[in-house]
């Protein structure tokens, strides 16, 4: 499984549009909205937006890496070919999730580099270190969503649904536009979303607090719910 996972990562990185879109784009977007359009002078905004774009990038890499890729491999018959080897469908899924998680590392590191080196975001060593697993954790509901999409829709449709969910959750969850400037009704909606609640873990850390609050329960509920749906779709399809 290790050799196959390495193969997955290498061939995904060679897909230049995918690499640009998922790895470079979030960091570019971050710099655009902090440096070019101003706001980088406010430390809190630069740090908060680093978390927001970090999560947006992590969700994007996970959703497309899992949802779209699995859907395409199912349609093309590759997963059928794999079921004729000793590899079990669940192990295949584990490989996909594992390589997607590893592929989010460069996304996170690039944005943190932009935050620390360009926008001079100052955090303690442990806070920097904590942000990596927190962003992974925050993207897990979307991993589950990707699995559910992959085992429900076919290739092109899966890609479309993936993009819709990515933008919907990113924008409404306050990852693109800070939730502080949302009208109250939208703010209330945002606070119910896993994207907002996931980013909130990181926002607390950059503010110097511990990540978990009572709001984390909303996040946990999404996590459990989406994994239940993912498990149901996976079992039905395999």
């Amino acid at each position: 499984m290790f050799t196959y996972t390495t193969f997955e990562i290498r061939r995904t990185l060679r897909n230049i549009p995918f690499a640009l879109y998922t790895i470079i784009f979030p960091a570019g977007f971050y710099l655009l909205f902090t440096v070019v359009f101003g706001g980088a002078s406010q430390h809190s905004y630069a740090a908060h937006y680093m978390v927001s774009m970090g999560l947006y990038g992590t969700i994007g890499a996970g959703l497309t890496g899992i949802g779209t890729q699995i859907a395409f491999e199912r349609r093309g018959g590759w997963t059928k070919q794999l079921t004729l080897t000793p590899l079990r469908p669940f192990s295949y899924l584990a490989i996909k999730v594992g390589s997607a998680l590893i592929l989010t590392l460069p996304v996170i590191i690039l944005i943190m580099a932009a935050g620390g080196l360009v926008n001079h975001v100052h955090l303690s060593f442990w806070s920097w270190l904590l942000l990596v697993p927190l962003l992974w954790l925050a993207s897990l509901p979307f991993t589950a969503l990707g699995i559910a999409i992959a085992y429900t829709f076919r290739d092109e449709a899966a890609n479309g649904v993936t993009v819709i969910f990515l933008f919907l959750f990113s924008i409404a969850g306050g990852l693109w536009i800070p939730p502080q400037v949302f009208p109250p009704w939208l703010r209330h909606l945002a606070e119910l979303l896993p994207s907002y609640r996931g980013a909130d873990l990181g926002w607390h850390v950059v503010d110097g607090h511990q990540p978990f609050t009572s709001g984390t329960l909303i996040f946990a509920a999404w996590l459990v719910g989406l994994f239940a749906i993912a498990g149901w779709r996976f079992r039905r399809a395999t």
Partner: protein
Amino acid sequence: MNPAIQDQDPAVRAHALRKHFGPVLAVDDVDLDIPRGQITALLGPNGAGKTTTFDMLLGLRAPDSGEIALLGRRPRQALDNGQVGVMLQSGDLVRGGTVHELLRAFAALHRRPAPLDRVAAQAGLTSLLGRRVEKLSGGEAQRVRFALALIGDPGLLILDEPTAGLDVTVRREFWAHAREFAASGRTILFSTHYLEEADDNADRIMVMTGGRIVADGSAAAIKAAAADRVIRCTLAGAVPCDVLEVPQVSSVEAHGESMLIHSTDADTTLHALLRAYPQARDIEVTAASISDAFLALTAGQQTPVPAVAANRS
């Protein structure tokens, strides 16, 4: 288990396989008994039930009823041991890697993979190992898919229409590699709707149509049987064993005065029959079921006979 006993198990044994899709009986009471070391073709038109049969052999679909053993084992077990290599009818290769990377990653999923150099040589890929998968031609991609089937070092290859959509040269190349593989005493079971592909490459042909095996034998026997006709008539006062003496009659079934006469040449039989039995009535001549299968095989071609000739040149 004792390996000596294992070796005596046939490559494929299936008994009374049946599969419904809604009201359609896709596979209807199929028996397969394929000894080791043979190349067997499952020949039939599209929709005959070939892919459904293979899917059941491979455990990809559960049969409604029936039993299956591959090399004496349950399909899943044989696949997990790498004893069965498979080329499915449709199978896009994943992109982004070289042929070598793909083969190595695929080999790593197996418990006892064959050495990659050997597999590459067997599939004719040695000079293509560094090529990116998305840059392969159709024939080259087919060789990679053949290599994937060989990676577990299988004793049995199951190939579902392995050359569908390929041109004649590529098809011939493919079979040169496949026959070489079979020459080492291994078994190949493949499906096709090209009569000449079955004829050129198989030791044995099983003809499938409408979910049933309608003929089973050597290529020569099958082709001869394809000319068979059934003459149905009422012969008052005739004795079946006398009717058997009529030229070109291969068998006779009597139901009272009504007879079912199988003939290898309907014209000759009918002329002789009418001379011997002028009282014959209700005469009806129909193709045997295997002929129906062959008609269906050639129905898609605009000019059946020249097309066969052209494919051979």
